[in-house]
């Protein structure tokens, strides 16, 4: 099946998911991001690559954090940024989703950054706008969050250098997590031999092993000897109901505390996509501790998004 993310020349025209992307394209993004880290560290943090281009942030699901990092990334590429926070119910009452997209295209949008509560929304928009306008998926339902997966890979590469011998554990609500899915895909593409998902059965999706992971329900066993621990955010609405009885019991068995972290390698790094629920999935001692690379993830996130936008903008 034709990969909808690539144009006729095999270049990246949209970034919708990391699944199925050739390794070279991913490595190229990470390498380009390294150059942009340099840019973000100097006085003038801008480069003129996307000057005159318009980037529209189409957020159907609220997220100030992610939207802000995309805005910063676009502005550092000298692009014009327009933010649209579209309340989903307003769209249902009024304008059809694709009509909104068409109207914005008519306003000469060059790039759409889309976040939506439904899996597949970014694919649908990309199919509709074609390869001349570029769509970046900033998160669609449970399906994918490719820029997060890339910045997670960048972070791991920065601290651990080679994926070939690594052991990575992803902990928490895998069932609902697009961050987990994207990270699993990129780790597999980059050749990580041991990827583990840790959590209770209720938070594991059907047939998750087929994604290329090992399932552990015991956190200490799951963390034994890992090089990287990625903690997922547990959404409050999941914490009491058919999936989990309480935040307290979750923290006791699946929250990352210093003593659970001790099962991992002594130089293991701790990651979190943010925002953190301290005391629910992660203990403050760990979040603020020496192994945590949670803040660098944010910096790398801007460079990675600059890399993605500049590669798309030139195709």
């Amino acid at each position, binding site marked *: 099946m034709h990969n909808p993310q690539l144009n006729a020349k095999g270049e990246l025209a949209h970034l919708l998911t990391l699944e199925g992307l050739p390794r070279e394209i991913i490595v190229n993004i990470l390498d380009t991001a390294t150059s942009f880290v340099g840019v973000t560290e*100097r006085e003038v943090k801008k480069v003129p*690559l996307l000057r005159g281009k318009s980037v529209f942030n189409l957020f159907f699901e609220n997220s100030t954090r992610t939207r802000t990092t995309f805005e910063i990334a676009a502005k550092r590429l000298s692009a014009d940024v327009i933010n649209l926070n579209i309340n989903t119910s307003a769209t249902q009452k009024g304008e059809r989703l694709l009509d909104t997209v068409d109207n914005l295209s008519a306003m000469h949008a060059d790039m759409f950054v889309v976040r939506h509560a439904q899996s597949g929304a970014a694919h649908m928009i990309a199919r509709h706008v074609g390869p001349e306008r570029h769509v970046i998926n900033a998160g669609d339902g449970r399906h994918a969050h490719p820029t997060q997966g890339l910045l997670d890979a960048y972070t791991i590469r920065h601290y651990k250098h080679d994926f070939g011998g690594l052991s990575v554990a992803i902990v928490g609500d895998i069932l609902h997590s697009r961050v987990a899915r994207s990270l699993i895909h990129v780790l597999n593409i980059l050749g990580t031999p041991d990827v583990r998902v840790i959590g209770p059965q209720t938070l594991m999706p059907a047939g998750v092993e087929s994604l290329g992971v090992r399932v552990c329900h015991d956190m200490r066993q799951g963390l034994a000897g890992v090089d990287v621990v990625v903690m997922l955010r547990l959404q409050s609405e999941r914490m009491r109901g058919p999936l989990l009885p309480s935040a307290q019991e979750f923290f006791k068995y699946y929250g990352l505390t210093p003593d659970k972290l001790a099962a991992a390698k002594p130089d293991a790094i701790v990651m979190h996509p943010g925002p953190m629920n301290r005391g629910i999935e992660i203990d403050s001692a760990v979040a603020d501790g020496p192994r945590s690379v949670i803040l660098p993830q944010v910096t790398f996130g801007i460079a990675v998004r600059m890399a993605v936008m500049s590669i798309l903008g030139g195709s």
Partner: protein
Amino acid sequence: MPLPDAEALCAELVKELRSVVTPETAMVGIHTGGAWLAERLHRELGLKLPLGRLDISFYRDDYHKSGLHKSVKASQIPFEVDGRRILLVDDVLYTGRTVRAAMNELFDYGRPESIALVALVDRGERQLPICAQYCGATHAVPKGAMLRLHRDDRGKLALRLDDA
């Protein structure tokens, strides 16, 4: 006409620049050929300030036509640009667009006092009002060919004519 000897030209540039450089002189090489040349000049001239390297991929004027280059290298300017006298080094001066991009990028790091261009070879055919203050040689290049600097494993520099 035979290509100039890169090593010989390099030696001449070193001689010329020796009387010009001071302990405060900064040198920046443009990836990739200019960076190689700059590494050699920097070493031979014994410059005090560490060498800067620029990758101009983010400043090129052909981004919208050709896209972002593969293998972008990181630019590193390990000194304060403000008030600095900079020697900008490139291997082959041609249309002048690479130097224009490099200058734009340098100005995003700060405001230099002056920039002087050092080029190993000037092949003419300028499209912008740019010139080299220090130049090894001029050499016309047949249409459709690219004049490039190569460096072998032992660090020996040589000019070669490649197809575009």
